[in-house]
């Protein structure tokens, strides 16, 4: 009934027919994912309410995107690479401190992890983290100072080493050796993929699992293979509504619905198709072949993102020490 009414209004040229605009500010590798999600959700939303939904997207480095939102980019929704970046937005009062409790699974409707991408046939025989510090092995990773993905890489390596060598000193020694094998530190994850794939540099690329899968399926079929290390980190890219902006735009409801949609079976399927690990058990089972079992530890092991950021990546932190210790 309402739909007919709306159409009539549209035909009559009245301006009340609702065209709602949402802005989703996201990080780099999610472009393809959210293109699919946006189309599917807009269709569903129109069927349900009759309103035309236009979802604008902005992608970039996770930290840079969060900074844009802090500085006034009026995102209704943020979908970033790590919780620390959304914490930073919360610190400025744009959304409540407890944002991560508002949606299931720490507000992460999908997860990913860090894996190794090697050249076909694995000529250097890379099997686990320990192999990365062998002499003559070149490792490609972006710069943790400028890339969210690189921070997950770093913490994954650290987590493994801490367990293996039984302490901080051993872990630090390991990552120091690891970064001695890094010939190029690109500023972002996609830059690193290009360096590895197109420039032919390096023996191993430390990458988001979703990026590695994308690379093997779409960038160079038969040229690369994925090696899953014995343990890795559970990367939980979080999503949330930016309350203050959504209130201003009057989009709180649709923004909320958008994020809840991400947890539905339909969206979880899209998520899996885009190489992110779904939360839904059913979808996960269906795509089990795509996502090998990995022993995962979480960011909680480091006391959460705020603590990890401060300890490892802030100026003078562990990453800086690794380099200035030379």
């Amino acid at each position, binding site marked *: 009934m309402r739909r007919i009414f709306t159409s009539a209004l549209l035909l009559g040229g009245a301006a009340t027919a609702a065209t709602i605009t949402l802005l989703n500010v996201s990080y780099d590798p999610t472009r393809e994912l959210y293109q699919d999600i946006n189309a599917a959700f807009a269709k569903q939303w129109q069927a349900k309410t009759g309103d035309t939904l236009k979802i604008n997207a902005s992608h970039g480095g996770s930290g840079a995107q969060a900074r844009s939102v802090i500085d006034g980019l009026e995102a209704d929704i943020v979908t970033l690479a790590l919780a620390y970046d959304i914490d930073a937005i919360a610190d400025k009062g744009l959304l409540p401190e407890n944002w991560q409790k508002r949606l299931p699974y720490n507000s992460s409707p999908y997860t990913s992890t860090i894996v190794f991408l090697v050249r076909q046939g694995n000529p250097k025989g890379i099997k686990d983290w320990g192999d990365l510090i062998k002499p003559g092995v070149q490792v490609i990773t972006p710069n943790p100072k400028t890339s969210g993905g690189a921070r997950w890489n770093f913490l994954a390596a650290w987590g493994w080493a801490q367990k293996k060598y039984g302490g901080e000193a051993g872990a630090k020694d390991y990552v120091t050796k690891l970064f001695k094998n890094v*010939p190029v530190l690109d500023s972002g994850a996609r830059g690193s993929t290009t360096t590895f794939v197109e420039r032919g540099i390096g023996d191993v690329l430390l990458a988001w699992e979703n990026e590695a899968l994308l690379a093997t399926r779409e960038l160079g079929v038969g040229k690369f293979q994925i090696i899953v290390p014995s343990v890795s980190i559970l990367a939980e890219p979080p999503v949330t509504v930016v309350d203050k902006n959504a209130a201003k735009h009057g989009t709180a409801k649709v923004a909320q619905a958008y994020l809840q949609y991400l947890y539905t079976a339909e969206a979880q399927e899209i998520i899996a198709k885009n190489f992110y690990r779904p939360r839904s058990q059913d979808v996960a089972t269906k795509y089990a072949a795509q996502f090998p079992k990995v022993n995962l530890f979480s960011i909680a092991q480091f006391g959460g993102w705020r603590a990890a950021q401060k300890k490892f990546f802030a100026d003078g932190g562990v990453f800086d020490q690794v380099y200035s210790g030379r």
Partner: protein
Amino acid sequence: MTSRLSSGRPARRHILPGLNLTLGYTLLYLSVIVLIPLAALVLKAAGLGLDGFWAAINTPRVWSALRVSFLTALAASLVNLPIGLVIAWTLTRYRVPGRRLVDALIDLPFALPTAVAGITLTTLLSPNGWLGAPLLEAGLRVAYTPLGIIVALIFIGLPFVVRSLQPVLEDLGYEPEEAALSLGATPSQTFARVILPALYPALLSGFTLALARTIGEYGSVVFISGNLPFKTEIAPLLIVGKLEQYDYAGAAAVAVAMLVISVTLLLAANSAQARLGRRGQA
């Protein structure tokens, strides 16, 4: 041709109209577009206090990045002087096949987004690139070394040198060298004693512009440099890194340090140019 300037400083009493209008507009526009925004930057850095400011920039990492940025820009701008002179000279004086096209190409580095320039040069110079592969055979690694940064900056800075020289070369004409040659000077003497001095201001101007532009270059360099701390990490990358940690004041501090270096360079170049100009007119 130059003698009419010999009165030196312009006379105090202005016959020409428009000083108040043009100067007023210049100052207003300068303030709105440049000075007020830069003041915001300096104020942000000043929020750290003197100690905080010093602490933010006085780290080995920052000094090393500033050094990399400065030295590679200096090297690239120096290399661009002879290259730019050869190109500008040839374009204004000789019959070059496809001169208009070659002339048009000079602006390419402006028009290509710096990121594209960076990606393109990396494609060419990486170990599997068209130039990179043969160069590597010859034992020369370009991409992901300081040399790669220099190549990118030569590309970025070239139009400044060529475009600074071209109008001057066009205006210079042939008279001075004809005079020198007819007075018995050899061509190389003529070049060294007559033409080159006339070009000094333009050369200096082109050099300074290229240096100033390349010292802060980011987009094209991040792709080719490899960004390794203490080796190929440039200062703007540190600024981006600090911003990534939401450390606005720290980023502003490094930015102000870069600004101070650039302003010093510009001041030095401008006063040198003023002196050269005066000597040229004497």
